[in-house]
């Protein structure tokens, strides 16, 4: 069954997407704003992350305590997340509570107070989270890898910032970030669940249509520079039991004509069944790792195609060599028809599973709206995957999977010189 959501544009430009489901007596509310970490000012990385933590801690109409009581008293959940380009506000409530929770969500989006005490408490939470990341080999490896792969691009910055940049953010900076980037233009309201779609549109108009803030500036998308050499770095963490390997190349933009070929190719490389070709080699045949997989992060600009594996320190060189070998093999010989057909069948067949829950549908609709994929994207998606040919997949594999231009970071109980994996 096609999703066929109701799509309306409010007078101030906000797009409302509503989809009725009757699976459970609950509703998912998802508001997406173009206010992610990409918009952090230089030197104040972590601003969007701190805004996300403070946003729902008091508004002009409701104190932090009022919001807590309203949510908890109804068993409703509210969370705010700062992604790379989008900041999202997500609420889950029983359908009987939609009328009470929806205006609260709108209030949080439009009228946050950024109370000074709340800012300091949440800054402390964010600094603690940064410290926790510094003790996590996986987080350390990925943060450093992004910096190496995108040395002059905003994608290379840490979304949570550092202790120094988070300390440099004042309450006024948060207010300014909100005033600049929280605007009706670029905002999408998605509601999925046991609630009438027309009622959602009326509630959205009541809650959001009086919001008129102009978006003055939009930073132009920086071009991504392709690395010309292989770079490698080691972060010895000798108190840890296992090393995390992060290995990446520059991927494709979401709008790239090769996106679907890249998606299918990545599935065959590092996802299908238990990690695709990489899983066959590193986990199944060599028994080196509990996890190994690849992920294609196609975004507004070219996000990374990143391979991750956790292995014992003595196995690091062998694991990196195996990744190099598999990538070289794919570049030289390509995938087989069977591999690409299996991945396509899997990706098409998994669509109903992804769209089973309210949260799954809401995330799908928000992504489709953000990337301007069309209201009927769910109906067109199977054919878009199906038309990928073996040649398409192999061409994009050759284009992307070049070990000579990879960035590699190893964090964990491993001290070998970087040349060992370079």
């Amino acid at each position, binding site marked *: 069954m096609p999703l066929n959501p109701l799509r309306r544009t409010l007078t101030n430009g906000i797009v409302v997407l509503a989809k009725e489901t009757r*699976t459970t007596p609950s509703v998912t509310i998802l508001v997406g704003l173009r206010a992610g970490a990409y918009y952090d000012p230089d030197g104040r990385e972590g601003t969007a992350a701190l805004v996300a933590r403070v946003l729902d801690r008091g508004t002009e109409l409701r104190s932090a305590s009022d919001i807590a009581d309203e949510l*908890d008293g109804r*068993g409703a959940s509210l969370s705010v997340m700062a992604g790379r380009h989008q900041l999202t506000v997500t609420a889950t409530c029983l359908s009987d509570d939609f009328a009470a929770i929806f205006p609260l969500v709108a209030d949080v989006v439009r009228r946050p107070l950024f109370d000074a005490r709340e800012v300091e408490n949440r800054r402390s939470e964010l600094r*603690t989270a940064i*410290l926790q990341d510094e*003790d996590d080999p996986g987080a350390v490896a990925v943060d450093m890898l992004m910096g190496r792969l995108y040395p002059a691009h905003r994608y290379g910055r840490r979304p949570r910032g550092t202790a120094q940049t988070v300390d440099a953010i004042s309450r006024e900076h948060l207010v300014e970030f909100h005033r600049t980037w929280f605007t009706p233009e670029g905002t999408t309201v998605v509601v999925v669940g046991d609630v009438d779609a027309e009622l959602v549109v009326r509630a959205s108009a009541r809650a959001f249509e009086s919001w008129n803030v102009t978006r003055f500036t939009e930073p132009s998308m920086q071009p991504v520079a392709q690395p010309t050499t292989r770079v490698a770095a080691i972060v010895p963490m000798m108190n840890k039991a296992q090393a995390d390997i992060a290995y990446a190349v520059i991927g494709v933009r979401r709008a790239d004509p090769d996106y679907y070929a890249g998606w299918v190719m990545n599935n065959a490389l590092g996802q299908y069944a238990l990690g695709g070709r990489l899983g066959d080699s590193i986990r199944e045949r060599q028994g080196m790792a509990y996890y190994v997989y690849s992920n294609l992060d196609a975004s507004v600009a070219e996000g990374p195609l990143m391979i991750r594996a956790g292995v014992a320190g003595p196995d690091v060189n062998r694991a990196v060599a195996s990744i190099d070998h598999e990538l070289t093999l794919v570049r030289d010989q390509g995938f087989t028809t069977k591999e690409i057909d299996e991945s396509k069948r899997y990706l098409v067949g998994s669509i*109903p599973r992804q769209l089973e829950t*309210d949260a799954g549908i809401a995330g799908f609709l928000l992504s489709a709206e953000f990337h301007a994929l069309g209201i009927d994207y769910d109906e067109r998606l199977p054919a878009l995957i199906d038309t990928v040919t073996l040649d398409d997949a192999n061409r994009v594999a050759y284009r992307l999977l070049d070990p000579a231009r990879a960035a590699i970071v190893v964090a964990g109980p491993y001290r070998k010189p970087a040349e060992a994996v370079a």
Partner: protein
Amino acid sequence: MSVSRVELAVPVVRETVLDNGLKVLVQEVHTASLASVWCWYKVGSKDEGPGLTGVSHWVEHMNFKGTRQIPRDQVKGIIEQFGGTWNGYTWIDQTTYLETASREAIDRMLFIEAERMSACLYEPDDCESERTVIISELKGGENDPEQVLDIDVTAAAFRVHPYKHPTIGWLSDVETMSRDDLYHHYQRYYVPNNATLVIVGDVDTDEVLRRVAHHFGSIPAGRTLQRVTAIEPPQPAERRVHFRKEGTTAYWRAAYHVPAVSDADFFPMLFIDAALSGASGLNLWSGHKVPTAQRSARLYRAVVDTGLASAVGGSLMPTQDPFLYYLWATVAEGQTLRAVEDVVLGEVDRIVREGMAEAELAKVRTQLRARFVYDADSVTDIAHQLGYFETIDRWQTYTELIPRLASVTLDQVNAAARRYLTVDNRTLGWFEPCR
């Protein structure tokens, strides 16, 4: 709030028992063209003897390595070609396997589970290869100071009951166990009279039961299994675990012995957990999907809103034997474990001394009811919940959750707080980082 809409979410389940003892639970859900099959075995890490800790988990891994009719090279893709996903997990009371895929795959899913029950191969080379994978999983866990702390707090809390050892096992056991140890464990516990098959989704109950009989009917019943008889004696005094290790962040834990799910005190304890840290639900598989509503909870206001901790929470999972109620906190940068502990234990003491009031009871009852809805928003989750409760108790405990929650009284809650949240009954854990 309308009561009826939540109560309409309570599932209608058909129970059947085959001649070989296999219990089958079927629930029709026709909202999407999907079906989920879970096969549950009443065997977990509590059923492991000395030298064999981790055997249940390793056996779970081996049961993805091919069967007599599904050669190793045909495992890959067997469900993926239906757009499906498959997985499994092992915990203290249970080992379970699942497939969720389009309804057209239902016969394939049943075939896989029937093969898994009776025809896994345990090739020696595969056993050895998987040993290093499991050691990698174990070492990966050791990278996380919170996991390290949890394992030691749990081990310290139990003296007698096998809940004391981690599901993944102790490293020395994983290094030394043999292929035959694995195979004997498999042969002993993977029998229809020790299993529950759960099917939820876009299926016709009568038709799917015919297919179940076709795939599973000829598998012979196994011997009656000996069950764990160990009873953990009352903890005589407070215990403490104190790590001083390299790290960046301090973590705090408390673990109180609490009753099994079948005990009348379990449900009152859910209310106490919700009052202290917010209702976090009873779905071990995917309960994290919807964050806990906890900002007005006692501990959140006491340590997070005051800046002492960056996060706080509780965990009370239903189990077959009496297990633990955990409280946890991440100490905020610049704050101390001592300060967090003093405030958290002060709040625990307050709920014991003063009890809860009717208004708070009503609030957390609403939270628990909402979690019941959120925890079952897919065929995969509904099937999980039915199988989970059947394996540790009876599936009706799950379907009767709403009336059970409605029947809990303030007196029962306050009595449970006094009975279980005592000094002697707790084990405290500190992870103190050294730079």
